[in-house]
């Protein structure tokens, strides 16, 4: 009857749906935006500092939203702190081999870094007059610490979600080890797209926007390679995508989210230059969201135990 099905088809679904998809998308934006902002701060020109500021403005609200989404998704939301403290002993709760556990801690600590950088960005822009807060951005020891620590944690937050799915026994998720990589790259490309979208109208930021667009092209090419490798690594489990989800993956993620934006980036001369950049950015964001929809929901509905 269920003759040649992979073992992952004989498991039941965790009912992770739209709140989790939303978290995967927004959490990726939080981590990726911080990472890009930190790179711009550490390696970019002084004129690009306002661009980095945008990254920090995205990261902190996005990490807050991530926490809210995750807590709301719990069946017992008021017990969210059980992820961090053992409820009966008050000892710290940490398992390095459980991505859900490491991810909870990473989100907490990353939130602190994102908050520090958010304050620094506010102070830097002149919106608040806290001179001490300006030191939480590079250059300087404290600022470099925030940028490097937050950037690394940001990438952890952006990538561990794919690893969380892989460290299960569910169809597709546990049949590949490339979901973490794919989500990580997608977080980088969607974050670059969002910063571009917020900055493209400001002429002073044009060189930085162009650098971000170029980075986004590189990330999209990586994403295409990672997706191809992911499908190949699924082997027999790729049957989970021989349906409408596979079509959505090809059209929505590869077509709309990767190939069309790449073409727009390449041919900004023929398209009306002004709109090619923001249109490509919107498409990249849509593609990144659809990627998470396909990955999460295609597995939710798969298996012989409905």
């Amino acid at each position, binding site marked *: 009857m*269920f003759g040649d099905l992979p073992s992952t088809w*004989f498991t039941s679904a*965790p009912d992770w749906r739209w709140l989790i998809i939303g978290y995967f998308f927004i959490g990726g934006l939080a981590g990726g935006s911080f*990472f890009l902002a930190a790179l711009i701060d550490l390696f970019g020109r002084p004129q690009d500092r306002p661009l980095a500021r945008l990254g920090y403005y995205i990261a902190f609200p996005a990490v807050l939203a991530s926490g809210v989404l995750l807590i709301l998704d719990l069946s017992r939301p008021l017990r969210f702190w059980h*992820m961090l403290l053992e409820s009966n002993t008050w000892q710290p709760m940490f398992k390095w081999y459980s991505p859900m556990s490491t991810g909870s801690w990473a989100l907490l600590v990353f939130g602190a870094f994102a908050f520090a950088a958010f304050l620094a960005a506010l102070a830097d822009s002149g919106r608040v007059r806290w001179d001490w807060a300006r030191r939480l951005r590079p250059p300087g020891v404290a600022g470099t610490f925030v940028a490097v620590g937050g950037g690394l944690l940001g990438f952890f937050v952006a990538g561990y979600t794919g690893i969380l799915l892989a460290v299960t026994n569910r169809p597709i998720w546990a049949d590949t080890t490339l979901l973490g990589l794919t989500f990580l790259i997608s977080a980088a490309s969607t974050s670059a797209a969002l910063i571009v979208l917020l900055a493209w109208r400001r002429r002073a930021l044009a060189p930085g926007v162009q650098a971000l667009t170029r980075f986004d092209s590189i990330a999209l090419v990586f994403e295409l390679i990672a997706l191809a490798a992911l499908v190949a690594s699924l082997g027999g489990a790729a049957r989970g995508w021989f349906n409408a989800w596979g079509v959505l993956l090809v059209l929505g993620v590869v077509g709309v989210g990767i190939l069309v934006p790449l073409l727009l980036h390449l041919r900004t001369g023929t398209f009306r230059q002004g709109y090619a950049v923001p249109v490509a950015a919107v498409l990249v964001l849509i593609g990144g969201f659809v990627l998470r929809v396909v990955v999460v929901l295609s597995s939710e509905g798969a298996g012989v135990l409905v």
Partner: protein
Amino acid sequence: MPEPMGFFTDTTVCIGCKACEVACKEWNQLPAHNGGAHTLSGDSYDNTRQLDGTHWRHVQFVEQFTPDRSEGRWLLMSDVCKHCVRAGCLEVCPTGAIIRTEFDSVVIQSDACNGCRDCLAACPFGVIGMNPVSNTAQKCTLCYDRLQAGMEPACSKACPTDSIKFGPVRELREVAAARVEQLHGAGEKRAYLYGADDTMLGGLNAFFLLVDRPEVYRLPPDPQMPTRNLGMSALWSTLGAVVLGIAGIFSFRSRGARTAALAEAEEEERDVRRSA
């Protein structure tokens, strides 16, 4: 310290009476009404259909009939949590709600569970489900409370054919091996044990005697630990982060930006020439 305890479920003597399901529900005070909806599967006498948060025993009805129904057999299996020696649910649980007891069984502490549902996805057998009353993940506890009082679990106590045998795993394995030998001697050559040795997840403390392939009973042929994917996933992601970091540095560093400015100037020049 008590020794590891478990179930040996001999599917060849199960008659599908579901006394185990009822006894389990009664002892563990699990709701029987499925939220008020009396749903029927419509394709067999199995209306429980699968293990979940309110069904900790499930008698599986496998009907193997020829199209004209002149020949056929029922395979009946009382399914339950396997209390794996290496348990995927226990491994991933981020709250520490899932524990290993002194009987080597795996128990979810309902007062610590916050309903993240990671264990549902991690279980290689799809055993765990959400209980809509407690809003926590729940499954068979091997009747931990009864064991602590020196009693056997409710399901095996109620089983009228001894299809469900309870005891020390070491003894159960001997009984099971003898039963397989007996069946082979009687001509039932298809009989074999599923999960009775250490090769499957370190051993299943609740193991089964089957007479067809595992898939027929909706059991995974090759159950694995969730963390098998952790190392490679982390490695690929780290490599990706390094590559993206390098790409970012080259995109944003001062010289890169100057090159971009030059390219932009060139592009504008081209545009001017094209429009001319």
